[in-house]
Structures are given as structure tokens and as C-alpha cells.
């Protein structure tokens, strides 16, 4: 059912809706039509996921912006967003392979050889091969470019040694998008190369690294003479930083406040949910803080809308588009802490089957990552100060200095 003719966004959305209504279990569609959350919850069990992903990919709806020859629909992002909205309306996830689709897929499309595109793109869209990201290291967080995992060439193969961290889904992954240092004797940004590393090999050891919530969301990955063929090198030798920046822009987008105005993207309790649960809030202090959080939430949404409206009107984007990620991440922390405080003692202890309070406490802890993951608040403030306001950078301690001579943890 690939779309070959250029059609309008409305027609595309209508096509997607027809597909969904035909493909999804009838109870699912009914639950959506009747806005019945409980019915939807039980309908979810009817969907056989592996086949679902295959069919969704086959229809091109997993990756509508990819070229038709690699399983996409060749659509502009603006047009494709209609499909995403329709999937959202039917409460179906677009993919559970985010690193694969958003990062590895984009990177391969942009930097990969034809062989690489042919080999990797369809399995990504079909969720047959899950990917993980092998970028951050214990010693290279905010300063990612200082990474120390080494890849040394040995004929047609590269031998990898070192350690990565924050690799989500590493256990399930077939491949990892790896940044490794291939030349330590040039400044940090210049000696990095990107690879498409097969995860299932003796030189790769994966260790879960649970978050403070206890959830094993991330992993550490150790390389002990791991091997990757030069044909799986992505982009030129020494150009890995360029590959990664083109990718990280997508990641920042994903983490960013641009999603803040979409319903359901809050990790934890939304302002609306708190009002619903706790209104009328009698304590004037709590009322004030709830009102403050409501205002913050509204202003982030409205600011994102303002930025989007400017884009639609073809105007130059202003600073309004840059501030919401940082503000929203700090707002989210305040909100989850407040949600906990609203509960009083019940926020800090609960009986086993009390999902609300457990979830509230979980969201509170999870919220701590909001100002760390995807660029710490400190780095975000540097970015606002330097890129938006034009303030000068700090004197650099490592600019132009060969990586091997720079101080590291």
C-alpha cells in the first residue's frame, strides 16, 4: 500500500486512518471512537506486535519521510506529521526502536554507503533489528567529544576497546551506533569515527545500569577487543563528530520542549491530572504553587505555539523557540516534586497495590534526569547565552590541543 503519487496531507491522513481502522482490532477502534480508556487498555492485549510492526513498516508509516526505495513514503516532514498525528489519535506508538529509526536511520540515510542503506534501513523500520547508541562514556558526558573508547585499524577490521554508558536497549540491540577515537593525536573533535557495531560478539559485554528509580533503563557496554568491519564504518575516518552532531540535533529535538505542548508527553503527573485529583485545593500555599505550575505549563505550550506560528508564517525564528527545553525541564522537576508534596506522607510510603502513589514517587525520582539527560541545564544555559544572546564562550582549555594531551577524569 505504498503511496506513489504525490497527494495532499489531508488525503494522506485519511489513507492512514483507513489503514488503521482496517488493521487494528475492532475493539481498539471502538475504544478510540468512544474515548474509553479502559476498553483500550484491554484491547491492547489483542495486538500481536511483531506482525503489527511489519505491517506498519510495510505501509510506510513508521518512516514516512524516508525515500520510497528504503521503505518510506518520501514525504516532507510537514506532510508526514499528519500521519504521526493520526497514529497519535489512534493511540498507537509509531515505533519502539527510537535509536534505530531517529538516530541510526537518519545517520545512515545521510552518511551511509548504498550498501549500508540497503542492508540496514528496512530492518530498522520493521523493528527486526533494534539499535542502541554508543556515544557517552563515564568520562565523557557533557564533554562528549572527549570520548576515550579507542578503535585501532587492523587490516579491514577495527579493534575496539573502551566503555560506553547510557546505552538504552543494548541487550535487545543487534547493532550499536558507535563513536570511537581513531586518532588520539589531533584535537578532540577531529579524531573520532562513527561505526555500525554488531552487538552480538564476544568482545562486547553489556551490564545493566539502573536509574535511581531502580528501572534498568540504561546499560554500560564494555568493549574488549570488539571488532567491526571497515565496511561498517559510517562516514569518513575522523568525521565521526560531524556524524554525531547531525544526529544529536535530532536527539535534542526529541528530548526538547517542542513536544511539551503535546498531550501525554509529560513524564509523571500533568498539571491537569493534579487539578483533577486534588481540586478543590484548600491550602492557599498549595493553590498558589499549583497556579504557578499551571501558568508555567501554559506558557511553555503557548511559547511553542508562538514559535510554530512564526515558522508557518515564514518568519525568522526568534529566541522563543530556544528557551522551552530548559524551562520545561526545570518546570517538570518542580511539578513532580509538587505532585509528591501534595500527597503528604502518602507520597513517601504506600501499600503494594497503591499505583498512584508509587507512580507519583517514581515520577519524582525520574524527574531528576530532566535537567541532566540530553544536555545538562548548565550546558543549556551556556547554549542560550552563547548561541542565542551572542555572549562569548569561556576560554577553552582544550581547543586545538591534541586529545592525548588534554586533562581528563
Amino acid at each position, binding site marked *: 500500500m505504498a503511496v506513489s503519487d504525490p497527494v495532499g496531507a489531508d488525503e494522506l491522513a485519511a489513507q492512514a486512518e483507513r489503514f488503521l481502522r482496517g488493521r487494528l482490532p475492532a475493539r481498539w477502534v471502538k475504544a478510540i471512537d468512544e474515548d474509553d480508556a479502559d476498553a483500550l487498555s484491554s484491547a491492547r492485549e489483542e495486538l500481536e506486535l511483531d506482525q503489527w510492526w511489519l505491517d506498519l513498516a510495510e505501509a510506510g508509516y513508521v518512516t514516512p519521510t524516508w525515500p520510497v526505495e528504503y521503505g518510506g513514503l518520501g514525504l516532507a516532514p510537514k506532510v508526514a506529521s499528519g500521519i504521526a498525528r493520526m497514529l497519535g489519535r489512534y493511540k498507537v506508538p509509531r515505533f519502539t526502536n527510537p535509536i534505530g529509526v531517529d538516530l541510526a536511520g537518519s545517520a545512515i540515510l545521510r552518511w551511509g554507503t548504498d550498501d549500508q542503506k540497503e542492508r540496514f534501513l528496512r530492518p530498522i523500520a520493521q523493528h527486526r533489528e533494534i539499535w542502541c547508541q554508543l556515544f557517552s562514556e563515564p568520562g565523557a558526558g557533557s564533554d562528549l567529544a572527549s570520548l576515550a573508547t579507542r578503535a585501532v585499524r587492523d587490516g579491514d577490521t577495527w579493534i575496539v576497546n573502551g566503555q560506553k554508558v547510557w546505552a538504552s536497549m543494548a541487550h535487545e540491540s543487534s547493532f550499536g551506533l558507535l563513536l570511537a577515537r581513531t586518532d588520539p593525536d589531533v584535537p578532540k573533535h577531529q579524531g573520532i569515527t562513527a561505526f555500525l557495531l554488531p552487538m552480538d560478539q564476544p568482545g562486547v559485554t553489556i551490564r545493566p545500569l539502573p536509574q535511581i528509580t531502580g528501572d534498568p533503563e540504561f546499560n554500560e557496554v564494555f568493549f574488549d577487543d570488539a571488532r567491526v568491519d571497515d565496511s561498517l564504518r559510517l562516514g569518513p575516518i575522523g568525521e565521526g563528530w560531524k556524524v554525531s552532531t547531525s544526529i544529536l540535533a535530532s536527539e535534542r529535538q526529541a528530548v526538547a520542549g517542542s513536544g511539551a505542548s503535546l498531550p501525554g508527553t509529560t513524564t509523571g503527573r500533568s498539571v491537569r491530572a493534579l487539578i483533577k485529583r486534588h481540586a478543590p485545593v484548600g491550602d492557599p500555599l498549595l493553590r498558589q504553587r499549583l*497556579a504557578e505550575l499551571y501558568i508555567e505549563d501554559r506558557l511553555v505550550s503557548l511559547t511553542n505555539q508562538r514559535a510554530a506560528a512564526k515558522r508557518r508564517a515564514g518568519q525568522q525564528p526568534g529566541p522563543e523557540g530556544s*528557551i522551552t527545553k530548559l524551562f520545561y525541564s526545570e518546570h517538570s522537576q518542580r511539578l513532580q516534586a509538587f505532585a509528591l508534596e501534595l500527597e503528604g506522607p502518602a507520597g513517601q510510603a504506600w501499600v503494594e497495590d497503591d499505583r498512584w502513589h508509587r507512580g507519583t514517587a517514581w515520577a519524582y525520582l525520574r524527574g531528576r534526569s530532566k535537567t541532566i539527560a540530553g544536555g545538562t541545564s548548565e550546558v543549556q544555559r551556556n547554549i*542560550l547565552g552563547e548561541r542565542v544572546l551572542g555572549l562569548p564562550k569561556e576560554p577553552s582549555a582544550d581547543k586545538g590541543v591534541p586529545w592525548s594531551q588534554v586533562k581528563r577524569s
Partner: protein
Amino acid sequence: MTDIVFTEEQDELRRTVRAFLEQKSPEAEVRRLMETVEGYDPAVWGQMAEQLGLQGLAIPEAYGGSGYSFVELGIVLEEMGRSLLCAPFLSSVVLAANTLLCSGDEAAMGEWLPGIADGSVIGSLAYLEDSGGADEAGIATGASPVGDGWAITGTKSYVIDGHIADLVLVAARTAAGVSLFAVRGDAPGLVRTRMQTLDLTRAQARLELDGVPATLVGTDGQGWALLTEVFDLAVTGLAAEQAGGSQCVLDMAVAYASERVQFGRIIGSFQAIKHKCADMLMEVELAKTAAYNAMWTAAEAPGELSEAAAIARSFCSEAYVSVASENIQIHGGMGFTYEHPAHLYLRRATSSELLFGVPSAWRERLADLVGM
């Protein structure tokens, strides 16, 4: 509601107003006027009306105005907030004109709006009293019927530009409740004293009324409901002004941080300063969003204004005080001198925060509106 995005025409209006104010209200002129008794320049006031038609911009054509919306008015106010224009614009064009418009009183509108629109009449609104209470209970001044009209006795305080107003709209209590009255600036029995103000660029007066003749505006006893509507519009206009002032102090701070050198470095390269500027930027952008949202709502969905106004009022007030304070901090000792304009903005910001109900009161109102 349409997208919050300025049209080419609106951008042009902004450029025109900014150019006018840069010429007519540079810092030296602001400093000159803030020490005069009147507190404004009648010649510039006249040019604003004749050349740009600013006073009548958002007044309906039926009453001599140009019939533009609150969005255009907000743009003008944003620019005036930026330049700290000393003029009775907020009092006359925002407070008095909108009180008349909200009253729906054809006679009063017909009598006063054309004059406000062409700048020949300066209007103002007197609702606060010495107690400072910004609620209905705060109104103790009384009005009694005398012949065809009314006579008002009591005291009004914090009346913006009350010392020069040709028309003072006075909230007073009748047998039916709080009502609004038109009082002429030169009415017998009215004594007006200019107050000393924290904000040097906005004059306020205390009015003593002793049997002052007055004309009822709107319906007897419906004055507080009318004022509640007016307040939403007033704080919307004020929020635009606050957003303009906030942007101006951010610009000032960033400019200084980009040129000032200490310890051999531009100080804006220090994270302590850089991150302060980043925080200011966030506050300013959100304040602009809040103000614009309220302006658009006032123009396109006035029935829903209360929530947007409460958000704009509480956020813009605190943001402006915060960025005006940080601007002084970033300027260090220089920012603490009378000669530097930084304090003029802090004074305006603080005064604006205190004068129209504190932010927490507006958040309490919001909590009610949203059903918290």
C-alpha cells in the same frame, strides 16, 4: 483564536512607534519630564495623536478612533514600556477609555471618547483609596444623588495622572453599591495632590473630594462588575508594557556583559553572568508569550480574557521585577548609580507590580477560574 504572530502591518506599526519614541522620548527627555510638575510633554502628546493617532488607535471609529484591536494597542504599549515614555497613555487610553467602553454608556462614551481619541482629553481612573485595598471592600468613598446628578465625598489615592486629568472616572458607593462616575478635573470641591512615587516616570495623585459634582457612568450599583472587566484589560495592557520593559533591560544587560571586561575577560564569558542572562532570556520570552496571548485574547475572544489576563499579570509582573533587578546586578556599581537608566526600569517594574493587585492575588483568581 488566530495564531499569535504579528502581521507585516503590525510590525510596521511597531517600527513607526519605536522610531517616534527614540526621537521624542530618549533617556534625556525622560529624565527631564520626570522632574516636571505635569510629568509629560503636551507637545509630544499632541504629535502622538495627530501624526500617529496612537490615542485613538483602539477606540471604535464611531467615537473618533481608528478601531484597531487590543493587539495593536499592545504593540504601542510594549514600545512605550521599552522607552519609559512619560505620558498619560496608560491612564487615559487604557484605563479611562476602556472603562467607558466597558460601561456601554452611550452618553458617556459620546461625551468623552472622541476627546480621549484625539488627545484633547486626558482621562484617568480612580478606584484605590488610602487603604490600598484592591477589592470592592476597599471603596469607602460615597456618592449621593443631588438634583439631576450626584455629589461625591471621599478620598482617592494612587490615581495615575490624576493631577492633570480632565476626566476622572471615580468609583464610589451609592445606596445600590459601588458605581462609577465621571468627574471633571476642574470640578469644584476637588483637591488634587501629586504624590511622591517610587516610579519616577509615572505620576500619581491623591484626590480629596468634598461634595464634588459627578455624572453616573453605566448602571448604578454595577460599578464593581464593570471594574472587574476593566482590570482584565488594564493588566493586559500593562503586561505588554512590562514585556517591553523586560526586553529592554535584557538588551541592556547583554550589551553590557558583551563589552565590560574584568579579569582580562568579557564578563559575559563568565558563567555567573552568562547563566543569569540565560535566565533573563527565559523570563522575557515567556513574559512576551503571556502578554501576547492576553492581547490576542482581548482582541479575539474577550469572553475568555480573565484567565489569559491573570496569567499575563502575574507572570509579567514578577518577570519584569526580576530582570530589572538582575540588570542592576550585572551592571555592578554602575547599575547602582542614579545616572544609569537601570533603576528607572526597576522603579517602573516594582510600581507596576504593586499597583494593580499583587501577582499572588491574580494567581488566586486564576485558581478559581480554572477550578483548582
